[in-house]
């Protein structure tokens, strides 16, 4: 057991290449960031946007596909550089093609899958993802027909700043849970203030 722990600890060998994630959300991931080549489900868009922030801050490109209703002011709040945030709001029937194409040139793609995505399309995309070393974040609803590598769930959410008729929304205390397969099989829990 001790040996296995040592093998997967970041900084030792066997740690995969990851895209950076700022604390405290980094604790959701076995290797402290988004493993390249993986598909991650995130039920809250606020959390998803927070996961794009560190990559964007490092000058990397992000993209959003199939999310015509994404709040772009919220994306800017999350410190995403809108000049490096490609938006394909309504790819329609071409969703899988659009995401696959984006992954050719953009390292981190946030997307809402269509209601009925073919399992074969999902498998092809996952293969493309591993080959291109990108990360696909699924959020905003829709369904992925395969098991994803990691699932991040918003378990609790307590807003601050509002009372009966006074104040305004400031931020919320969230309880997040991540479960997945492989190195991520052990459930990870993080408590985070969002926006940070």
């Amino acid at each position, binding site marked *: 057991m001790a040996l296995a722990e040592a093998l997967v600890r970041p900084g030792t060998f066997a740690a995969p290449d990851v895209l950076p994630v700022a604390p405290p959300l980094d604790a959701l991931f076995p290797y402290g960031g988004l493993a390249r080549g993986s598909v991650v489900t995130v039920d809250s868009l*606020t959390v998803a946007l927070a996961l794009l922030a560190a990559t964007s801050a490092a000058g990397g490109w992000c993209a959003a596909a199939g999310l015509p209703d994404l709040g772009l*002011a919220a994306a800017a709040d999350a410190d995403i550089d809108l000049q490096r945030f490609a938006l394909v*709001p309504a790819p329609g029937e071409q969703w899988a093609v659009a995401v696959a194409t984006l992954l050719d040139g953009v390292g981190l793609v946030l997307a809402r899958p269509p209601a009925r995505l073919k399992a074969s399309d999902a498998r092809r995309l996952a293969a493309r993802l591993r080959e291109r070393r990108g990360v696909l974040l699924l959020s905003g609803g829709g369904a992925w027909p395969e098991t994803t590598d990691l699932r991040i769930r918003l378990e609790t959410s307590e807003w601050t700043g509002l009372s*009966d008729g006074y104040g305004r929304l400031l931020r919320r205390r969230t309880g997040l849970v991540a479960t997945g397969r492989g190195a991520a099989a052990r459930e990870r829990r993080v408590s985070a203030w969002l926006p940070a």
Partner: protein
Amino acid sequence: MSRTPRLLTLWCPDWPVAALDLDPDEPAAVLVGEDVFACSRAARAEGVRRGLRRREAQRRCPEIRIVERDEAAEARAFEPVVNALEAVCPTVEVSRPGLCALPTKGPARYFGGDEALVHVVAEATHDAYRIGIADGRFASALAARRGIVVPQGKSAAFLAPLPVDLLGRPALVDLFARLGLRTLGDVAALPSRQVASRFGAEGIAAHRLARGLDEHLVASRATAREIVAEETLDPPAETVEQLAFVAKRLADTLAAELAAHVLGCARVLIEAETDNGEKRSRLWRYDGAFTAAAMAQRVRWQVAGWLEGPVAERPSTGVARLRLTPDEVHRGAGQQLRLFDDATGSVEADERAATVMARLQGLLGFDAVNLAVLSGGRGPAEWARLVPWGEPRPAPYDATPPWPGRLPAPHPTVIHDPVLPARVVDGSGADVLLDEHGVISVAPQRISVRGGRPVPIAAWAGPWPVQERWWDAAAHVSLARFQIVTADGVARLVATGEGRWWVEGTYD
């Protein structure tokens, strides 16, 4: 007194098809890749449209003739038309093959008025084109579509009833539509100062167009003339390909120089010369600001029209000099080159992303791939707008100043469009209403969204009053926003007015 030039525009519909010189009744389509780029009237009558896939066009019109697009051929075919116009007036400016304009000031006086000038031009071009005259480029181009002469000083009146989408700026037009601005006249009626603060540079340009003015205020021509890109070719270039190579280099140099001066160029003078003193110069116009690629393309069109055009007019020897002069510039380059000077970003990453975005546009359509620009405005629909990749992006709006009633961050992560109808009730189940003073008389207790189950409200704040059409006192609508957190932990941005409630955004 007006400095807006009066122009004659000559336009040929479906030029890429017309240039093929086919039987006008033959259904034909010109393709770029697998998509229909232009089609003949006969094809359109069968349901063929721009943007259709080849197979779909053939399904709708089985006898259609399909031709690959050949831009050099289009330029060559238009060359005699421009030459004929230059006999009428030396300063013809070409926007693209099939569309060009000339100032009427001198020629109309010479020929005895606008109608007489139209007659002369129609005769010189064998009645094959649509011709219109109006003050300003935008009005003149629209007059040409209809084949009419708009009297002096009447461009604004001519434009007023026309729909806003003629402005050709989808994101802005969309925003105008949301604000209830349907015609160019509605846009023209907005006060200039508010347009500048609310819609930014693109809004100013659109506002100018709607009023019958030209898009940009022209900066001094002297400034423009100082920036020239020129190259002497030794040995002279005999082919369009050789010249295209030089053209690209010159265009890149010129674009960089313009960007360094923060200038946008809307008209460029391209001159090609041989050692035997033969010369072909032409003015090219571009809506907005020329990119290096667009300039290089104009050079290719021009030299193709000369070297491969009518035999009698071809030069006797190779082209020895090529010169690009920005002839009309405006401040604040609309299409600013993004300079990759920040420490973290990598040029290669940007180029890779640019490549896939362009590929996606080929796949899904130009408007399908965007970048967002933050803009001012109180309502969530106005906080950001999408600009198609490759289009000039206005500078992001500084969101701090003066939008009274605008809520600060955090912003909702989901903006509902269309908004979700809701019902907000008090403890007794009665609707909560906003009175004429913009306040609610009783605390909201439950909300139901889209006819769903009413959920208890855990916390709320507001109202933040809004007057959406702030420039139009008569259209004053009493509207207010609230933030509501329900017992299930969901926070929403809701609004009410005229007895109704709706959800504008969710903090997902």
